């Protein structure tokens, strides 16, 4: 075991804001906006129209291909089916539901007993996971059933990612403290599907309470190992995590399955448990609402579709927010419209105050080389940035632009505050555009 990776940084963790706050149920909102695109792949087609009455957990969107369905998070009436702002910054077709506050459950939702679950085949389990709309809940939102079916026969190591290396976010930490049994149960279902009898749970050493809660539920005979890794950003990045746990490097441009690994987020495991045992589709998730100007940071069990506005109201802010991020401060996306809803991949809403503004005062590269030491992918951001002066895709590819995981270590550490990640995102888009033209 390698236990760590090269490069990386130690940003101020700021976990203390919310790490001791128990997960609370979010008070049922009146209006929910449920986007049809909450995963990587083809967006869903709405299955309901304006005026329809929907029940909690009812499927309201689905599509063919690389896609998982979306479900109504509450019961009520469909108010509109129209494009609405989305955390990705674009307008996305969404179903707007007016909550009737009755929480009428959909008839399809039937719990299963332990015996029933044990009889299910891998095929059936994967179908349940797909129908429950489960995606990778760490933020990447890759459909879980696809990851499972493509990993069949190739994967020999399952890793549950509880690293949560982003500052402020404690959603997975809280999940492991409050739902350890559910998470481990979900993991066992994954192990059953992939036909493996061992798995790793990888956690950073800054979550002792979560580690204790998990250890209490782990039976050493079951083959699940808890790996405590040193806290370093980006420990939770898939490739870095696999390297830290197994010592294997995912080849450039390859998938984790290439080295026999599959990584699942802890929240995904709990969602799998809920889908299989309770029959409950993915309609709510734990969201850390935190930030340096929050009056009362919270961990909330939020129905999918609640707007950021309501989350901000729930925590209160001391001053006007400077930035509101979907996700953490290292990789989160800044939002311009707080009407955007919580989606399946939203693990946190981070609210930053004006004192974070100094980070955008930019000067020139002084060639200190700190970015090279920080890059967990072994790249040379200083040369990559130079290559973006040209618009030549070949030149940009030659410095391994496409290997960049946009973790933000280089831009964080850059003393001149050069907007490296911004430049690399634009460059990668340019390379993709050029490839598409050919």
């Amino acid at each position, binding site marked *: 075991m390698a236990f760590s990776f090269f490069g990386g940084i130690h940003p101020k963790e700021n976990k203390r804001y919310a790490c001791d706050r128990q997960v609370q149920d979010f008070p049922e909102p009146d209006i929910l906006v449920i986007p049809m695109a909450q995963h990587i792949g083809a967006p869903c087609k709405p299955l309901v129209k304006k005026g329809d009455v929907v029940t909690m957990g009812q499927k309201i969107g689905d599509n063919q291909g690389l896609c998982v369905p979306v479900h109504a998070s509450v019961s009520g009436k469909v108010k509109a089916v129209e494009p609405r702002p989305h955390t990705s910054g674009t307008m996305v077709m969404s179903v707007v539901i007016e909550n009737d506050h009755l929480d009428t459950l959909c008839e399809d939702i039937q719990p299963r007993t332990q015996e029933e679950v044990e009889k299910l085949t891998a095929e059936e389990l994967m179908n349940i996971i797909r129908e429950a709309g489960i995606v990778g809940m760490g933020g990447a939102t890759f459909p879980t059933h696809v990851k499972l079916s493509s990993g069949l026969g190739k994967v020999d190591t399952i890793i549950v990612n509880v690293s949560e290396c982003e*500052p402020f976010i404690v959603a997975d930490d809280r999940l492991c403290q409050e739902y350890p049994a559910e998470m481990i149960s979900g993991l066992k279902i994954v192990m059953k599907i992939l036909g493996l009898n061992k798995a790793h749970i990888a956690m950073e050493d800054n979550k002792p309470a979560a580690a204790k809660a998990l250890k209490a539920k782990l039976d050493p005979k079951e083959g699940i190992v808890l790996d405590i890794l040193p806290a370093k950003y980006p420990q939770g990045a898939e490739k870095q995590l696999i390297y830290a746990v197994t010592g294997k*490097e995912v080849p*450039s441009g390859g998938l984790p399955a290439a080295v026999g690994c599959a990584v699942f987020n802890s929240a995904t495991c709990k969602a799998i448990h809920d889908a299989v045992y309770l029959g409950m589709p993915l309609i709510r998730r734990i969201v850390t609402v935190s930030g340096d100007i929050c009056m009362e940071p919270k961990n909330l069990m939020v129905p999918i579709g609640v707007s950021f506005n309501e989350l901000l109201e729930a925590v209160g802010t001391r001053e006007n927010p400077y930035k509101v991020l979907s996700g953490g401060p290292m990789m989160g996306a800044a939002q311009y419209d707080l009407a955007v809803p919580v989606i399946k991949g939203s693990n946190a809403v981070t609210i930053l105050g004006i004192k974070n503004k100094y980070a955008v005062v930019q000067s020139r590269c002084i060639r200190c080389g700190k970015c090279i030491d920080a890059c967990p992918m072994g790249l040379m951001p200083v040369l990559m940035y130079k290559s973006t002066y040209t618009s030549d895709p070949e030149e940009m590819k030659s410095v391994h632009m496409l290997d960049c995981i946009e973790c933000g270590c280089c831009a964080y550490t850059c003393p001149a505050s050069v907007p490296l990640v911004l430049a690399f995102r634009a460059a990668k888009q340019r390379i993709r555009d050029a490839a598409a033209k050919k």
Partner: protein
Amino acid sequence: MAQMKYFYELTISSSPHVHSPVTTRTIMRDVVIALLPALIGSVYFFGLRALMVTLVSVAACVLFEWGYCKLTKTNCKVYDLSAVVTGMLLAFVCPVTIPYWTIIIGAFFAIIVVKMLFGGVGRNIVNPALAGRAFMMSWALLMSTWVKVGFGNTPILGDTSMEALDGMTAATPMSFMHQGVLPEGVSALSMFMGNIGGCLGETSAVLLLIGFVYLLVRKIITVRIPLSFIGTVAVLTFLFPQGNERLDWMVYQICGGGLMLGAIFMATDYVTSPVTKMGQVVYGIGCGVLTVVIRYFGGYPEGVSYAILIMNCCVVLLDRIGRPKKFGAPKKVKEVAKG
């Protein structure tokens, strides 16, 4: 929209949204702090004129950069303190007797010609302070008037020419060593402590090493360049002692001249040194070899500044070696003979 409850002016930007507290300005501030022990030492050894020369040099550098930005209507970045560092280093490589007008010309060359005309901070090819010194060598006599160590030996204002200082001047240890002999009456301890003749800020190895430790602790620089630079000089002078006692010769060579100042503060200048670890080591070795070659065979007794200037020009090439191994790149499989 009915849902919109708040109307904030939200800022949109690419991630990351937090930043390390280390900025160019804090780095330069740390370098200035690291140079302070040597500055205090030079005041102790050479009198208040050392402080005056440094202040004039710093003021000239800052004013030239500010003026250039105002004239060309470009964004002025004087607040990053890099001009202050250049000013201090420029003063440190001049004799304390240097007339103020000369150092102002040196500052002009360093800041305007070497730094700003190449595009300002981060764009210069050679170290501005060393290039300024090289330019000031046009006044060779002024740049090689060495006074004896003593607080009151040099007037703060007034004539500092060789004639006016009659009786106060003395050859530096380096000029003895250029002849291939150890300096008479100068102990190894004096070489280390710095009560010897020489440029204003370069004489005291111990005070420069204190600054070195500070920079290491603050993680501003690594040991790679200074260690490979000084190490190479040590090895070469130990191997070729020019007929002297090996160990003595090595110690005098290491503590003498501008080696410590150059290796710790000049060769490590981010802008003009390689970014790769391997490149930095090769750069340091190159500086060391050139220093010894110039000291042994050159016309000047001292070679550190020219060694660094020459190696500055090789940085583009040195950046190509020792690039880090990309994560996920195929490893080079070594064929292992079986049997």
